[in-house]
């Protein structure tokens, strides 16, 4: 009953953010609002750019890639040098090269895969200046790509697709900073810590139990961590740590923050292409996939785990509580982790590795379907649009007409680019998983025995290639092998998808719009929603079913302990 109310509240809030945040985002990227004009002008002056000068898709992409590479270098340098810098109350040493490389790539690609425990590895300066900065910037870069693809569809015979620097700066200033400040205040009011004072030693006079409690600037990092679908937490325990996610309110707020921008972008899309119904059909597709995975996870976790039931402890009331916090229980834990794996957040409020096989299948499925339900900030929308192009192509093959999407003819070039962008992720995941399970450096990372050890490795590459960042965290990822292959998987999952996507946007922007006729295949109705859902499920299912069969599926059928 309480959980039904939580879900209903979530839906109501998301309907509001869909409509109003969606329209606000539209205004940001169409230059309709300018209340921070003064700050913008200063920045554009420092960059020496004309706010109204637009770029071709090639120049836009070049700016994006150069900016990301420079960001990786700066993040890497700050992590390496933290030992000699200030705001380091625990006197932590510089981070090792392989780990710094993995972490820098991870935060710049919006993945936030973490091969370290924050409280004992990162100084406050690193958390604030190195990692949190990328939590603002990397989702703003994702937004740029989504907006460019939307413009490509919306514009006619246009050689330009916008200006990367303007889109990036406006995204951070108008969307991420204001929303993060407001939600940060809610986090801290609920008990998330926000202090520059170091760890504190406490001693309980009743029991003489003593404990050193780490603290730090957590609450405001938490806000942008969820809002930017980043997921990299201050502490090792991430969103299950009481200092990150102290109450039921912060738990729901986290879920709302993760989902709000990716959901709202479907409205922005509809608004910018002049067909809000089209945006709604995308949203509906996302909602169906989300609900399916959530249902599976709730079912799995409420039925408890074999290790506990075979020890004769009844789990009828509570479900599988291993790795879960009492203040959330199984339902709110499953909801949070599903929201986090279906967006590209990857934060957790309960241990993914201790989920039941069905729960794990639900978590990994959201990623294997390409992170489109609703996906990461920006990346969710552009990925589902790539699938939409494949879906109209399939529809075109069936009826024997040149496929169209919103009046744009989809020809060989567009289908090739969309196909390429979609296939990068599965290829990366399967090849790296194959290598890892074949060699000792890969096998030795697995923590759990039996099929779950394989699932840990498969999950790691699925998560990194989708820029998600969640983990079956038993896997020991802080080795040269996992740090380096993981970083490559994250870069491929980010940039090897962005390049064909912006190329596609450029190619679509150049095209004329074909007027609607009787023979036009409509893409803003339920039939297309069904076709799109089917395409996403088929592509993901056909690619990954054999791998899943070796992992969670065999584990759930075997009823054994390993």
């Amino acid at each position, binding site marked *: 009953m*309480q*959980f039904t109310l*939580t879900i209903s*509240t979530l839906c109501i809030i998301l309907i509001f953010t869909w409509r109003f945040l969606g329209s606000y985002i539209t205004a940001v990227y169409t230059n309709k609002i300018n209340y921070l004009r003064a700050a913008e002008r200063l920045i554009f002056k*420092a*960059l020496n750019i004309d706010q109204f000068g637009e770029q071709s898709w090639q120049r836009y992409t*070049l700016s994006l890639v*150069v*900016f990301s*590479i420079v960001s990786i270098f*700066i993040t890497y340098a700050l992590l390496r040098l933290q030992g000699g810098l200030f705001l380091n109350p625990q006197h932590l040493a510089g981070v090792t090269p392989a780990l710094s490389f993995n972490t820098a790539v991870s935060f710049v690609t919006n993945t936030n895969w973490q091969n370290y425990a924050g409280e004992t590895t990162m100084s406050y300066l690193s958390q604030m*200046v190195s990692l*949190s*900065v990328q939590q603002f910037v990397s989702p703003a870069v994702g937004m740029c790509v989504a907006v460019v693809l939307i413009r490509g569809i919306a514009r006619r015979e246009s050689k330009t697709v916008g200006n990367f*620097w303007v889109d990036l*700066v406006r995204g*951070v200033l108008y969307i991420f900073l204001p929303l*993060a*400040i407001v939600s940060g*205040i809610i986090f*801290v*009011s609920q008990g998330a810590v*926000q*202090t520059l004072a170091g760890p*504190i030693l406490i*001693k309980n006079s*009743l029991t003489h*139990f003593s*404990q050193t409690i780490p603290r730090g600037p957590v*609450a405001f990092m938490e806000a942008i961590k969820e809002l930017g679908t980043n997921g990299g937490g201050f*502490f090792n*325990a991430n969103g*299950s740590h*009481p*200092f990150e996610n102290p109450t*039921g309110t912060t738990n729901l707020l986290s879920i709302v923050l993760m989902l709000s921008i990716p959901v709202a972008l479907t409205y922005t899309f509809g608004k910018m292409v002049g067909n809000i119904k089209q945006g709604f059909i995308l949203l509906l597709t996302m909602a169906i996939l989300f609900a399916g995975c959530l249902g599976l996870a709730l079912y799995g976790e409420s039925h408890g*785990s*074999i*290790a*506990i039931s075979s*020890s*004769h*402890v009844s789990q009828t009331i*509570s*479900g599988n509580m*291993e*790795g879960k*916090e*009492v*203040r*959330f*229980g199984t339902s709110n834990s499953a909801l949070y982790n599903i929201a986090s794996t279906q967006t590209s957040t990857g934060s957790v409020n*309960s241990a993914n*590795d*201790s989920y039941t096989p069905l729960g794990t299948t639900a978590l990994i499925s959201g990623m294997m379907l390409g992170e489109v339900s609703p996906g990461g900030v920006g990346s969710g929308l552009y990925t589902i649009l790539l699938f939409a192009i494949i879906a109209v192509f399939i529809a075109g093959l069936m009826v024997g007409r040149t496929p169209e999407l919103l009046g744009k003819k989809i020809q060989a070039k567009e289908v090739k680019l969309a196909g390429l962008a979609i296939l990068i992720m599965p290829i990366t995941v399967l090849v790296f998983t194959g290598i890892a399970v074949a060699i000792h450096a890969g096998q030795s990372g697995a923590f*759990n025995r039996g099929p779950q050890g394989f699932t840990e490795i498969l999950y790691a590459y699925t998560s990194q290639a989708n820029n998600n960042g969640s983990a079956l*965290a*038993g896997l020991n990822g802080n080795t040269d092998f996992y740090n380096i292959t993981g970083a490559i998987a994250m870069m491929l999952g980010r940039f090897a998808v962005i390049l064909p996507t912006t190329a596609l946007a450029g190619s679509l922007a150049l095209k004329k719009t074909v007027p609607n006729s009787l023979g036009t295949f409509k893409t803003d109705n339920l039939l297309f929603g069904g076709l799109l859902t089917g395409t996403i499920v088929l592509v993901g299912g056909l690619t990954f079913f054999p791998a899943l069969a070796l992992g969670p599926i065999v*584990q759930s059928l*075997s009823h054994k302990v390993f």
Partner: protein
Amino acid sequence: MLLQIRRSLILCFIFIFLCGIAYPLIGTGIAQTFFHYQANGEITKNGSYLIGQNWTGPKWFQGRPESDNAMASGPSNLGSSSKQLKTSVQQSASKLKREGIQPTPDLVTTSGSGLDPDISPQDAYAQVNAVSKYNHLPIQTVLSLVKSEIQQPQLGFLGSQYINVLKLNTALYKLEQSKNR
């Protein structure tokens, strides 16, 4: 290309100032001014209400069987069909039974943070008999103490019902003190 690199560098430093320095410092300012207690970790003289501690039963109500080492937060990561998990569940269960407590799922499993400060009402009810017997307190008094410490979900539906173990044991301590006086 050189132009892009120069712009990237300048912009990175602008973002470092805005998002990496101004944002967290303004946040810390707001937090320390308006939410001083919460922002510093709800520290009281016997510890933080948010961070779990070790309590030996049945002298005290015990929390979940984890190390409560706050410098190393995180879960066990043991899978749902892990033999190691089964062994540790069985050990916790037989320890509880020796203390006269019927095992509940929360009391034989570890949490996501390894620092869970709470137990569910069922976990506390299961301990009432043992705790009251050990401390020579009437069962009814301890039971009503437990009931008075139940935290309802926020707004009636956000999160689960729970009992904060530090608060419960502090109340238990006060009860013993008043009895001895």
